[in-house]
């Protein structure tokens, strides 16, 4: 059993994987997959391997499930793991999700718009998520919005 699987919860159009602190606001039609990272003993394995295993499961369901007429609009919200950029395991966790999400954006083409938001905490991402849900962002896919750079 994955140590992060049990934390995967669906609430409205928000899927949480791991411990995500705070409110995640996902305006329609955006679906948000929010990733959180708690203090664990084997942090690299749990944050990189187990979290991505769960992420791929959820994204497969979201992106390749029953056909829909409208385009799917997904944002993966990464809340920074403990230690931030000073912690190599935390860096690896964020980079692994970027590698996954950006590759899937290339693979899935026009049917799915897929972006990644990296923030210190979920609440910091509210404005960006509203933007990604708006028609103004129609040409935005395969992009990283790293809010840590502006904090």
């Amino acid at each position: 059993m994955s140590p992060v699987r049990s934390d995967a919860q669906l609430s409205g159009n928000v899927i949480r994987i791991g411990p995500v602190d705070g409110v995640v606001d996902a305006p329609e039609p955006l679906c948000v997959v929010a990733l959180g990272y708690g203090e664990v003993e084997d942090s690299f394995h749990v944050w990189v391997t187990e979290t991505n295993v769960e992420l791929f499961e959820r994204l497969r369901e979201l992106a390749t499930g029953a056909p829909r007429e409208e385009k799917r609009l997904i944002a993966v919200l990464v809340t920074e793991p403990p230690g931030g950029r000073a912690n190599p395991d935390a860096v690896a966790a964020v980079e692994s999700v970027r590698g996954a999400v950006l590759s899937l954006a290339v693979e899935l083409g026009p049917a799915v718009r897929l972006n990644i938001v990296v923030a210190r905490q979920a609440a910091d991402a509210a404005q960006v998520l509203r933007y990604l849900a708006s028609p103004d962002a129609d040409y935005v896919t395969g992009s990283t919005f790293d809010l840590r750079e502006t904090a």
Partner: protein
Amino acid sequence: MLITGAGGGIGRAIVELAVERGHSVIAHDLKPGSLADLRGVETITGDLTSKDHLRLLGRRVADEPLEAVVASHGIAGAVALADVDERRSRAILTINASTVPALFEAVREPLTRSHGTYVAVSSQASLRAERENAVYCASKWAVTGWVRAMAAGQAEGPTVRALCPGRTETPLFVAATEAIAAAQGQTVEAYNKDIHDLIPLRRFATTRETASLALYLATQPRGAAPTVVANSGGEVPF
């Protein structure tokens, strides 16, 4: 020098070149028998995802003057999202990513004592997004990100570097090429020409070329070589 993945194309080439250049080598691989024909090296087989095996490996090299460890083990993982399954994605991520810092911890002390270097053989897939290869990319982006952060954060301890090879002519790569060409109804020559057109040098790397760069990274003192180097024939400018 400890070299993992020594039964495979790149790892085996690193071992052979290291021996040729006079290094003392411990060759490691998962599969018993895969190292049987290597000459002039000590061989160890075992599963790097096993904490018990990592402890054993750490004990074996604990008193060695360990100049370098080259982590060149790994598995391929090209798969479309629709075909991803949990077991496969966990295997790709565990073997390609989780074992890299785990092996580092197992050898950190002797490497530190020897002012040695830890080289992770990552991939050009860690430097770009690739369709139908997202799980593999996730694993390799993790490795290269971890290496960069380790290099930036530790003034003491082993030097940490990553090699990002492009398409290298290993037996597995050649077999995969033949299978893809057949699936697409093309000859291998026609398929390879299409791929060569993506590469400025218009050819694949030989295993010896990739091994040579790995050894370069493994043997340069801190500050004398970059933390991350690509060897992609120009396919992924870096």
